[in-house]
């Protein structure tokens, strides 16, 4: 009886929960990809150095030539992805915030066309209509990698819990404050996943740049095929694969660091 009356004062006890988990960034699993890549490259180097290279192969399989092609390839990939981020994220935000379903449908349809068209087609069509070279390849890559970032930005904003949004508004945040302080931070993981996809897309599609004289590791692959020099082909192909793996790994790393804690 007494306890019914006095129980109000006994409510202080709060359940103890686990202390905040430290974010684990440096684990063994984290370094699996770079270790595998290093091993593959070591095997490749050992294999190539064990071969008797003819004069054509020597012209390609040397450090100067290879680093130049890797540089071109990376430049295309990184610059195209950066452009995609700068263009597609704001457009994604605008589309997600737009009350017009028509606008939304048009933007998505255009981005879909960019990706659904075969990459070779986009590159060659642009070269015919415009010019050959680096800039054209860059534009083609941007068109091609636009959709994942655009769509993920839209999804990232849309998926923010309606209650979180309502409590932000209810506390007196302006729409711009809700976007910058609540919606975008909460959308970061999804947007970054889109950017990561775009990067890996770009590494692959940048090999096609060779068809319009824009360089990159595609040069090695195509030369190796045309001249039937398989060591050249294999080195080019393996390098592209390794770059894709490494870029994906770096992007995943950044994703984990930039994702707000507490999510």
């Amino acid at each position, binding site marked *: *009886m007494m306890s019914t*009356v006095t129980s109000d004062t006994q409510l202080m006890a709060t359940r103890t929960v686990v202390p905040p988990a430290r974010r684990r960034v440096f684990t063994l699993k984290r370094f699996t990809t770079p270790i595998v890549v290093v091993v593959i490259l070591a095997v490749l180097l050992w294999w190539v150095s064990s071969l008797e290279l003819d004069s054509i192969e020597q012209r390609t399989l040397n450090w100067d030539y290879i680093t130049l092609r890797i540089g071109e390839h990376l430049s295309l990939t990184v610059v195209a992805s950066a452009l995609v981020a700068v263009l597609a994220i704001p457009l994604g935000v605008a589309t997600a915030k737009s009350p017009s379903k028509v606008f939304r449908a048009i933007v998505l349809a255009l981005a879909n066309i960019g990706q659904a068209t075969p990459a070779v087609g986009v590159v060659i069509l642009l070269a015919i209509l415009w010019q050959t070279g680096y800039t054209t390849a860059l534009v083609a890559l941007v068109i091609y990698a636009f959709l994942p970032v655009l769509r993920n930005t839209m999804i990232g904003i849309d998926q923010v*819990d309606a*209650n979180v949004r*309502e409590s932000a508004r209810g*506390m007196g945040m302006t729409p711009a404050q809700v976007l910058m302080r609540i919606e975008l931070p909460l959308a970061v993981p999804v947007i970054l996943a889109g950017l990561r996809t775009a990067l890996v897309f770009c590494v692959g599609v940048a090999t096609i740049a060779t068809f319009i004289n824009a360089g990159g590791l595609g040069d090695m692959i195509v030369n190796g095929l045309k001249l039937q020099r398989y060591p050249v082909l294999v080195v080019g192909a393996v390098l592209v694969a390794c770059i894709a793996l490494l870029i994906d790994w770096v992007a995943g790393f950044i994703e984990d660091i930039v994702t707000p804690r*507490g999510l």
Partner: protein
Amino acid sequence: MSDSTATRAATGAASAGSTPGGVGITLDKVTKIYAGQGAPAVDDFSMSVQPGELVMFVGPSGCGKTTTMKMINRIIEPTSGSIAIDGRDVLSLNPNELRRHIGYVIQQIGLFPHMTIAENIAVVPRLLGWGKQKIADRVDELLNTVQLDPGTFAARYPKQLSGGQQQRVGVARALAADPPVMLMDEPFGATDPITREKLQAEFLRLQESIGKTIIFVTHDFDEAIRLGDRIAVLSDRSQIEQFDTPANILSAPANDYVRSFIGQGAALKRLALIPIADATLSAVTGVKNAPTVAADATLRDALDALVLAGLPAIDVVGGDGRAVGSITVDAISAVLGAELPGVPPAGA
């Protein structure tokens, strides 16, 4: 809403609750018609809420009680009518500014998952441009108020807290800038019964000391009785069927709709609201080792003890452990009977 309101409210709450920290709210002929819907969701709603009063909106789902509440901070804009807080027309104020001076708690809490508990609570003070030290002090103070240890919880993220703890943070966050008015939409609805009862008891104690003007929406009539100073029983289109104190609604329901809402056991619910002091006590029984009841308990507790003991009367024990009298079932019934003719209390 100007800053002076907030300052005045803050001063009020700071002086240990001696002055009520709330201001009056007036709704006049407020109507909401959603686009594309013929019938209004809220139809011609008028109500006057006293400063420091805790008013409960009770009604079935979809009756418009939440819509009515959300028009006060303009999360939903009224179609017509006027709403005034402390005499100022809210529809003429900047909605963002307005909301910074109204505490807002929703059932799903809506804590920001990427912010720590301290950052969550600091949101409105930051929007109002408070200094860092003032914010930090306020966060600590509020965490203590809702009985969460700042050292343990301030740096945690919402997902590391249980549902009940999150709801406490939700209340603390709404109180952060010491708003004179609080709007609460089924704040305890998503918690389990035991946690809910704890939160309700804590909330009642808290309200005793801060005296905010609170609009509290619930579909749980028992919660309304337990917490409310006055209860508005609402039916479709937010029509007020009865607006009165819990005791008056229980003893004299206005119509069948209100009666159906009270459900079974109205007398027992009423007893839970009446202290033993209201009953006429008889002489001490003097029976040794018989069950007793505390003098500050309610009549419901007394009846419970009587039924359990199976005795005609049991002793009522004061704070010092000495029996001050005894109580019988007849005495309890007499209190209920005495209330029936009912003098309407102040404000009804």
